[in-house]
């Protein structure tokens, strides 16, 4: 057994520390790092199951030019000559990079340096544009810099926590766990959740404000007026450290206007305002519900205004706090990886900043103006203005709004370079040149989490195949383009050092991002670097937990700015053609476009199929039956999703998870449906508000398929399908209009790899349109298929569990019933990933031991005691049990 390597989780912006240990036979043990300040040893379901995602299946391991495998030399030559030619013929603005919050800071730094400093264009944008660009813009216009004022420890110090536009319980589970524990220890502390949906997070709150979608600005602008009117102004702070408060207060709407505009009950609204007014230690945490909006920047400003007015900022337990989505969204911001930034939190529009960076980099061709933000960038590719694009570590064909346009644009683009660690994504499918990158566990560098904490990500696996670090790829490209002198890097440590030096270069406290204390780090120091919270200027090497508690903003006059915001509705209102509003978001156990999390059987078990949640009243009005498939259509595109009724959804609004691309479902790429409608300041698209209509998807048949190996997608052509990995199997939901002439023949055709000596079992009820087939090799289940006119009523989790068994002989007859026979164990749907406990096991324990609280369930079964992200679901099981009629 090798010693554990300390690293950080590659999923969300919480940035949990992990200890990874490589065991015998390639297995990797993953555990939370008890010394890491973000998580203190805890991990959520996604982090816990990272070991399941490390296999080399599906990895991109060699460079590929169109269909042919090529050497690195040739691949880099092709890329460099292609980019060079485009610049010669069409100018530098015809080149773009589209990068990612998954990149490490070092990778990000060299990519940004190459394009802005040496290619001479700022056409580099990142998927962080989809994530927190509005926060960046809000921070910059209030604080003069993109600064998160507080830190995670504030969660434990706050008496009131306001979560707005954030399903924290699912999307930042470890932070939610910290909130929950603090609240459990101090029951008088309050949690307010503001979200149009009744999410699992909302379920845990003392107060849930189900405000009208997109009305957040109104709510917080009203709060500002209320605070001002009720004597909550911190005059010393406001007069000493801020500007323009009066204009903002004057713009505040009345309580009545707010209640009407937000669709809230006046008493509820009053209660929230009162709590906020009365609590000194108050934190407002926000995420994509705020950011992903055509008025996202104003929403952020409205929130920050309230904290500035009350002086509740940068003090223990108080402040506005942006929860970032990605592991290194912050790192990307620090290096200037957005089109409208320069580097090290310097402004591209500021000639002094440009001059400084030009001198530091010795980059005469430094870009002079901001580049195109993501939506416009892909628009320019579509228009032919951009003729070469390099996409790193991200999957815009799934994640961008109006994603069909994005795909069309890339299909048209003369040169599409994609560096990624996964071979088959929707984006690699449209690439000309594929460059194999290192994955988590192989790469080495730093990331920054939501609280400005820089942590090392360290390698504990050997680089597979010909995969290379992203910084290495960029460096090689830069050298081929003639910039060898500026890109001498042989290790990430050198890059980090340069990045740190730049942050301190002619800084003297004028810029927030200063990590000059780390600028002299040698290789050993870099390798040993523990978590440190920036700013860490030379005189404060231990870092800085909080900023602005006593002013010191980064505007020219060191005063923060109030912004007078006026509420405006989401860009596109529902209409007769598109009467419903689509909201999108994450699920508990998936991540982005599933290229990593989609490889974990434990994670896939939570929600194996894409769906759309519809309020029962809308379901009735639009004839959408529970469990049926619906087509969801906007003016941009369409998708096919399973209908789920839920009163958690506001009437008129539907919700669909963002994760599925065409690698895991044929028609569920919701990005194709979503409108762009970017915020005019931040350029962040309005991913959470798209007018749509839903139609029942008329199908002749549906099927559930489970098989040991993946099915050749060509065999499923003409059908709609979704697939998910399971333990020892792949599971598919399939639906179609054309009925095959023989279901038995069809089953033979789609079951992968014909097997000799296999047993075929069949069940046919022609009259009912039900056909079932199974293939066994010996007593092991190899594949099974259940066809029915509607969603086949079979116990999928039980069927999938059979693939883990050496013999299914006792269940052989029951197999084709799709239901466990007598004596079979059926654990139900996976609820607790950490303890691997299914719903049936938990329900049985609840009934047997008369458990009545989530903690009691935890004590009895071990469910929900680790990461806590399944606690809302356990609460739901408890509620359901209470609602059962007494036996």
């Amino acid at each position, binding site marked *: 057994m090798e010693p554990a390597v300390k690293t950080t989780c590659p999923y969300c912006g919480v940035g949990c520390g992990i200890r990874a240990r490589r065991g015998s036979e390639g297995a990797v043990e993953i555990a939370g790092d008890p010394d890491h300040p973000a998580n203190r040893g805890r991990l959520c379901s996604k982090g816990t199951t990272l070991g399941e995602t490390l296999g080399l299946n599906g990895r991109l391991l060699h460079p590929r030019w169109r269909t042919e495998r090529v050497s690195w030399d040739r691949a880099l030559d092709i890329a460099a000559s292609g980019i060079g030619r485009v610049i010669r013929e069409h100018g530098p603005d015809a080149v773009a990079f589209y990068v990612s919050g998954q990149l490490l800071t070092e990778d990000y730094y060299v990519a940004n340096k190459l394009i802005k400093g040496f290619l001479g264009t700022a056409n580099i944008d990142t998927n962080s544009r989809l994530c927190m660009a509005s926060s960046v813009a809000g921070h910059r216009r209030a604080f003069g810099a993109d600064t998160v004022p507080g830190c995670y420890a504030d969660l434990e110090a706050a008496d009131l926590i306001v979560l707005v536009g954030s399903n924290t319980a699912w999307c930042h589970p470890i932070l939610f766990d910290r909130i929950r524990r603090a609240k459990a220890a101090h029951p008088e502390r309050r949690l307010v959740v503001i979200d149009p949906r009744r999410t699992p997070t909302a379920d845990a709150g003392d107060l849930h404000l189900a405000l009208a979608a997109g009305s957040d600005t109104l709510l917080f602008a009203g709060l500002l007026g209320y605070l001002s009117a009720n004597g909550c102004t911190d005059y010393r702070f406001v007069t000493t450290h801020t500007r323009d408060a009066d204009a903002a207060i004057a713009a505040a709407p009345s309580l009545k206007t707010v209640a009407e505009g937000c669709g809230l009950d006046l008493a509820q609204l009053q209660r929230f305002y009162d709590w906020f007014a009365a609590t000194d230690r108050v934190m407002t945490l926000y995420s994509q519900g705020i950011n992903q909006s055509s008025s996202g920047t104003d929403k952020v400003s409205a929130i920050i205004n309230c904290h500035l007015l009350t002086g509740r900022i940068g003090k223990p337990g108080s402040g506005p706090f942006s929860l970032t989505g990605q592991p290194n969204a912050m790192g990307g911001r620090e290096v200037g990886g957005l089109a409208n930034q320069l580097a090290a939190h310097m402004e591209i529009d500021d000639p002094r900043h440009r001059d400084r960076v030009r001198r530091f980099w010795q980059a005469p061709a430094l870009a002079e103006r901001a580049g195109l933000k993501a939506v416009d960038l892909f628009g320019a590719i579509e228009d032919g203005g951009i003729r070469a694009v390099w996409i790193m570590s991200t999957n815009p064909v799934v994640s961008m709004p109006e994603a069909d346009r994005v795909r069309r644009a890339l299909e048209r683009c003369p040169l599409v370079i994609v560096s990624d660690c996964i071979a088959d994504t929707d984006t690699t499918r449209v690439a000309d040149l594929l460059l194999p990158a290192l994955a988590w566990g192989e790469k080495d560098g730093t990331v920054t989490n939501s609280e400005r904490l820089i942590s090392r990500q360290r390698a504990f696996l050997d680089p597979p195949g010909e995969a290379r670090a992203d910084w290495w790829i960029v460096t090689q490209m830069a050298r081929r383009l003639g910039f060898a002198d500026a890109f001498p890097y042989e290790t990430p440590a050198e890059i980090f050092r340069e990045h740190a030096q730049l942050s301190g270069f002619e800084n003297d406290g004028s810029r927030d991002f200063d990590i000059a204390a780390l600028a002299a780090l040698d290789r050993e120091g870099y390798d040993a670097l523990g978590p440190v919270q920036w700013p860490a200027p030379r005189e404060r090497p231990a870092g800085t937990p909080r900023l602005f508690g006593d002013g010191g903003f980064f505007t020219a006059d060191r005063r923060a700015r109030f912004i007078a915001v006026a509420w405006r509705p989401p860009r596109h209102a529902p209409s007769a053609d598109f009467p419903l509003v689509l909201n999108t978001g994450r699920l508990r156990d998936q991540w982005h476009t599933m290229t990593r999390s989609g490889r974990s059987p434990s994670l896939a078990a939570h929600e194996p199929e894409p769906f759309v949640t519809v309020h029962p009243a809308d379901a009735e009005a639009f004839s959408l039956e529970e469990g049926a498939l619906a087509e969801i259509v906007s003016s941009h595109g369409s998708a096919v999703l399973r209908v789920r009724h839920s009163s958690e959804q506001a009437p008129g609004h539907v919700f669909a998870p963002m994760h599925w691309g065409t690698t895991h479902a044929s028609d569920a790429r919701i990005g194709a449906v979503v409108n762009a409608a970017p915020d005019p300041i931040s350029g962040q698209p309005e991913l959470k508000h798209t007018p749509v209509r839903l139609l029942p998807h008329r199908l002749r048949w549906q099927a559930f398929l489970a098989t040991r190996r993946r099915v050749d997608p060509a065999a499923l052509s003409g059908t709609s399908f979704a697939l998910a990995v399971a333990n020892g199997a792949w599971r598919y939901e399939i639906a179609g209009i054309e009925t095959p002439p023989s279901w038995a023949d069809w089953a033979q055709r789609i079951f992968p790899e014909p097997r000799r000596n296999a047993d*075929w*079992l069949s069940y046919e009820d022609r009259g009912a349109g039900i056909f079932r087939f199974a293939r066994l090799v010996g007593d092991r289940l190899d594949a099974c298929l259940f066809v029915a006119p509607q969603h086949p009523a079979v116990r999928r989790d039980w069927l999938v569990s059979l693939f883990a068994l050496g013999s299914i002989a006792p269940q052989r007859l029951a197999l084709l019933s799709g239901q466990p*026979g007598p004596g079979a164990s059926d654990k139900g749907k996976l609820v607790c990933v950490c303890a691997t406990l299914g719903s049936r096991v938990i329900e049985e324990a609840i009934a047997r031991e008369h458990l009545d609280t989530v903690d009691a369930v935890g004590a009895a079964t071990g469910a929900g005691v680790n990461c806590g992200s399944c606690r809302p679901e356990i609460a739901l099981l408890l509620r359901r049990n209470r609602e059962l009629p007494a036996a």
Partner: protein
Amino acid sequence: MRRKLVVVGNGMAGMRVVEELLRLAPDLYDITVFSGEPYGNYNRILLSPLLAGEARVDDILLQDDEWYRAHRITLFKGKPAVAIDRALREVRAADGTTARYDRLVLATGSLPIIPPIPGAHLEGVIGFRDIGDVRRMLAAARRYEYAVVIGGGLLGLEAAHGLMRRGMTVRVVQLMPTLMEQQLDADAGGLLRRSLEARGLSFIMPAETVEICGNERVTDVRLRDGREIPADLVVVAVGIRPNIALARAVGLHCRRGIVVDSTMLSFDPSIYAVGECAESHGRTYGLVAPLYEQAKVCANHLAGWGCARYPGSLAAASLKVTGVELFSAGNVAGSEDSESIVLHDPSRGVYRKLILRDNRLAGAVLYGDTADSAWYARLMRDRADVSEFRDRLMFGPLSPEASAPRAVA
């Protein structure tokens, strides 16, 4: 004074009537039984195990002489009834023995159908109906090698299996393309054939026997295609027909069998008919379960209770060949307005077909796994609506959702 009951036929049906009657009204009648065979009543169902050497004669006797004595039943063994005087209400046997009756039960059973082919009279050509036939087969098995069984139905297969177990080389000549075509569909018939072949039987099918050849004793069987199959013993098992010669001779209304109403009463108010010779609701039966149901109804009326009705039976059959699990019930052929559900696990030799009509189970074929046969039989008898659990019907009663069909009290 006790009334007089005469039973013609000492078989399973007649004696079941007597048993049931003794239970209901032990002292109501003086009972006389005419028997064509020299034995007491035996379980004809067990002739196959007897032939196969899996049972002895003693094992299959249902009632011995002592039982008849104990119940003061007069048994005329080896005295087949040949005439009935319906006016006098008197039965006469071949040897002139007579008995008067107040009530008469005809339980004359059935006879094997011997097709009109040349050579059917030869020595060594027999049916398979009684202990005598078994004895003849056993005697042949000791002396000869080759047996041909004409007919691939239930009885033919049991005979063939028994003879094979007795050491003979057995070939089954079957007219139809499927074995047990009355009870099985082609798939189940195919499974059965493969299973029996694996045990050593051979089948020639579809094939028609056109002549049984030999001088005194049979030597060959000739098929329509000209093939000649060596045969020292020919068992003809192409079917049975109700034995109604006596009834017809005395003018009782008969069609295929003696026509009875739902109390098992014939058109003569003193005469009942039960078992294979009776035709109820237009159907005759050749299996044991219906016969028992009829006997119960008949006894109920003989006892003067007069409250039982026979609604007809479900035709259910299972093949008594060791190691072959097979069950068939109801209408297995299906019809235009029926639907079928089929489960197939060929490598484990399991096949199940359920036939539904109007949301009710109308027929079932179970091959290889008959564990749930009683449940299906009950669903058919009760005419239970299965639409609620149609999806799980195939998988037996233990599946929780299907365990309590609503029609079953």
